[in-house]
């Protein structure tokens, strides 16, 4: 589904990604973990080219995303992205957030877009908030709306960029539950996260990154419980004691 080959990314002299190779199969849930500054968010953002890769190729669903002639707007509709800071449109109601892309990109008539948006909202369990403004919602609710918004374009892949890192601890659970349901429905997911418990339970595979390279990857439970590499062990023991 996603195929990343020899991907590098530099900000000036700062080499954030130093040659990444990664394949993600259809319906697979891959969690990317690692210390801050390891390049995991940059890797995720390269997949839908919010970040411009320095070199390498990325193929999503048979389309070479890194090709300069690639129709980015079109490819992006097949990849939903969820951000750490939610990034809901504050001037639009919850429903307005959900109808924005279908109406503007796919030219869906308002009535259909609203019905579709409400269906997505139901998926994340927030039907009663359909007319609320984003500022009236808790962080967890905002993030769930953001997930619903990403789902309105019927993506084939979902990208999560530290979706729970900005949330108060007691609000993390409801967002993870939505993500868990999504994985259960067979969505292909690439999840950058600090939630080791979630990774262990939901992911098919865990990828550990440090210093711009993939240090180790493997089945989720084995990776979390019994990592082979020293750096992975050190990172995991640090995050456990936290």
């Amino acid at each position: 589904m996603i195929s990343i080959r020899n991907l590098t990314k530099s900000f000036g002299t700062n080499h954030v990604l130093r040659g990444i190779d990664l394949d993600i199969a259809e319906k697979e849930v891959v969690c990317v973990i690692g210390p801050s500054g390891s390049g995991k968010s940059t890797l995720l953002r390269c997949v839908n080219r919010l970040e411009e890769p320095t070199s390498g190729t990325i193929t999503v669903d048979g389309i070479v995303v890194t090709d300069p002639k690639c129709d980015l707007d079109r490819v992006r509709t097949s990849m939903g992205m969820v951000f750490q800071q939610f990034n809901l449109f504050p001037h639009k109601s919850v429903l307005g957030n959900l109808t924005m892309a279908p109406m503007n990109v796919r030219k869906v008539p308002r009535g259909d877009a609203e019905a579709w948006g409400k269906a997505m909202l139901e998926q994340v369990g927030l039907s009663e908030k359909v007319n609320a403004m984003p500022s009236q919602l808790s962080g967890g609710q905002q993030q769930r709306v953001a997930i619903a918004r990403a789902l309105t374009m019927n993506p084939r892949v979902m990208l999560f960029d530290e979706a729970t890192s900005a949330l108060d601890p007691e609000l993390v659970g409801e967002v993870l539950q939505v993500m868990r349901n999504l994985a259960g429905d067979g969505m292909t997911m690439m999840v950058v996260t600090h939630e080791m418990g979630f990774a262990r339970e939901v992911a098919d595979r865990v990828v550990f990154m440090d210093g711009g390279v993939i240090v180790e990857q493997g089945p989720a439970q084995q990776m979390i419980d019994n990592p082979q590499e020293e750096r992975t062990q050190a990172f995991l023991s640090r995050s456990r004691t936290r």
Partner: protein
Amino acid sequence: MRLVRTGYGSNRMSYSALIVGNFTGNFMGNVVGGISDQFFDVKILRDMMPGLLTEAVKNTVIYTAVAFPMSMIFGLLLALGRLSKRRIFRWPASMFVDVIRGLPALLTILIIGLALPIAFEFRWSSVGGRFAEQYLPQCLSLSLVMAAYMAETIRAGIQAVPNGQIEAARSLGMSSRSTMRKVVLPQAFRIIIPPLTNELAALFKDTSLLAILGTFDGGRELLQYARGFANSRANSTPFVAAGLGYLAITLPLLRAVAALENRTRRGPKAANTAAPAAGAPA
């Protein structure tokens, strides 16, 4: 030319001579009475009516009401030009904004109202009759001046919209154009409502600069109208009347700016108490 017709030069001499005379005289006699005669002469005020409202205030409002939306549209185009990735848009827009902001507004008004017709041998009246002569160069020059300032305000507003908003829209597959139209601009305009209101007040006052162009009877704005009366009556009351006319509009506007700024300052805080986690740092 027109300037002569409004009696700019000769009357002013006699006017100042009279003022000096009057002042000296008044200081010899009753100082308080002299001041009230000089600045608050009810009879002169009465003579200024109804033209003060039907001509002076009316025209000031017309100039403002036409120039404000025009400068907003033109300012938006300039702002988008300055933010464009393409040089052919960015350079002319930056050049225009910098030059206009670097020139005294009075000079720009003179160039458009007087210098252009002389240089290209046309009369503004020939563009669209008497109406055009009365309003076109005035509104055009004011709009251009205002557009340059407006462009900077709008640009600041656009840049104040968090980058995450653009990323969210683009990640949904929205084009850069519809991201600008549906996501960035609506938020940018909300942000700049207070400074925009400020600029509306500034524009209202700057209509007084149009006095330099002179105009027909019936086309005078507040300051020019007052000046005519001040000249012919050798009295300052008309200026006081004009001042009150400006304040009647600008004071409420400036209060509105303060209120709007208060509201936007409170805004994010109110949102945070409703949603404690919304603003939680990463």
